[in-house]
């Protein structure tokens, strides 16, 4: 247990100055601007927005600067800031079918309507250093096709869905408003909306590890990347005072549809089942990991025995949040003097009792 302590104000103030100096580094090197971080560290920004659960590129850049690039500390800053703001309402659910696509690939169909669009990806790079970036990076002239992409590209699972071979994804009766874990405590068994919200803000590393465990056999699913798409979607909002939808602007998102084989069960014919990943910014690893874990958490729905960690929703949902996790792990740094003193005294008492007992036994033996 943590017990409040007093004192140390001067020392604490001194650490604030010291961390500011450490953050700045060598002052002969020009300082980074928030705009530079926002424009040139886009993938880091995306991760901070996802785990901070707040889409704001400027604030995510500021958080990264303030935290010296510590992603979890940056996410914590965003979470803390969010609690100071009023909530104006919820958006209309974003329509990823209407995404202005910059990347869209499928590992299941090579000839899909709309085509395979590689977009800005590291997938086909050689992972060799580009030392030119240590000097002045020159931006190459980017090719433009004569024609833009198709205005609307069907989501890949919807193609197989037409044949009835794919688990359908339809809203439940009445299209209910989703659960919100920032307002209500999570209860188990948890519904899909609870799981997806938790995974959306979950730690990328944790979800990646779980997804990897599923693939390696600790989860019994063999996923295919049915589709990954990335681009801009419009955010629409219906203000009460107007009563019609207005565009608030666009956000960049990544969506992943994982497809899994399923043998079928008593009431369910054999079909492909699905896992869904959705993340802010260009966050493919996060979206893919989320989709695999989303599917493994459907174990209950498909009557699968939940034998592995990635299938156990309490385990996954209670441990995915890195702000909560680091809070609990790192609180061990704070003074636990009273606790420790108590344990120390207990240990001394047990020891002395033991010694006393042994000497009494020895005397009796003699």
């Amino acid at each position, binding site marked *: 247990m943590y017990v409040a302590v007093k004192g140390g104000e001067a020392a604490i103030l001194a650490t604030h100055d010291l961390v500011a100096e450490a953050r700045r580094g060598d002052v002969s090197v020009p300082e980074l601007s928030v705009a530079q971080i926002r424009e040139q560290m886009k993938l880091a920004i995306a991760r901070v927005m*996802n785990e901070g659960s*707040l*889409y*704001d590129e400027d604030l995510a850049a500021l958080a990264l600067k303030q935290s010296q690039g510590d992603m979890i500390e940056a996410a914590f800053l965003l979470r803390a800031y*969010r609690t100071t*703001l*009023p*909530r*104006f*309402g*919820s*958006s*209309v*659910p*974003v329509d*990823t079918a*209407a995404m*202005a*696509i*910059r*990347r869209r690939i499928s590992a299941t169909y*090579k000839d899909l309507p709309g085509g*395979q*669009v*590689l977009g800005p990806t590291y997938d086909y790079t050689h992972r060799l250093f580009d030392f030119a970036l240590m000097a002045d990076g020159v931006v190459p002239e980017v090719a*433009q*096709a004569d*024609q*833009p992409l198709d*205005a609307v590209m069907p989501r890949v699972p*919807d193609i197989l869905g037409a044949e009835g071979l794919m688990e*359908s*994804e*339809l*809203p439940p009766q009445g299209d209910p408003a*989703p*659960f919100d874990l*920032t307002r209500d405590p999570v209860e188990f068994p948890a*519904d*899909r*909306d609870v799981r*997806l*919200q938790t995974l*959306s803000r979950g730690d990328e590393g944790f979800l990646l590890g779980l997804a990897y465990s599923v693939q390696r056999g600790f989860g019994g699913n063999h996923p295919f990347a049915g589709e990954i798409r990335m*681009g801009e979607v*419009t*955010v629409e*909002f219906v*203000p009460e*005072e107007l009563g*019609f*939808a*207005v*565009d*608030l*602007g*666009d*956000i960049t998102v990544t969506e992943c*549809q994982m497809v899994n084989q399923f043998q079928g069960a008593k009431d369910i014919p054999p079909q492909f089942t699905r896992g*869904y990943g959705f993340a802010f910014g260009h966050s493919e690893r996060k979206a893919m990991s989320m989709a695999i874990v989303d599917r493994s958490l459907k174990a209950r729905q498909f009557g699968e025995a939940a034998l592995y960690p990635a299938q156990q929703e309490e385990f996954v949902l209670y441990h995915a949040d890195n702000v909560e996790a680091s809070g609990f792990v790192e609180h061990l740094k704070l003074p636990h003097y009273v606790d420790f003193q108590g344990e120390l005294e207990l240990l001394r008492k047990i020891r002395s009792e033991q010694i006393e007992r042994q000497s009494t036994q020895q005397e009796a033996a003699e």
Partner: protein
Amino acid sequence: MNDQSQSSPKTDRQIWMAVLARAEAKVLHDYFEAHGGLPVFQIMKPAETGTVMLEGRAGGSGRRFNAGEATMTRCVVRLEGQLGFSYALGRDKHKAVLAAVLDAALQDTAQHDQIMRELITPLLQQHNEAKLEASRKAAATKVEFFTLVRGDG
């Protein structure tokens, strides 16, 4: 603006509000500068920053879920007889005021055509051109994968 949207065709007002939501404060500021400065208006609800919960759907088409929040800023003004509203992602309060004044002015038939012609239409055009360019760049990375036939038949 939102030519691929799932929803019904947009009204004029939805179109100009969408354009204003995406505009930079400086562009709106410069417009007023070029037209004799800001008109006299009353603030009905001061520009305020809050959040909007962004909803997604499982699988893109299924159950709604909360994907995380975004910052947004809103403002309500009165300009002569008209109430002007603005809503946009981000935290720019100055822009929120300017956009709300423009929303009010655009509802005034005497000013509507000029603002559309000199501000909204060019901004919409720029937005569509930027979108087209991004799409053409993406289209240049479109590939055809060939499956190779293995073995000797």
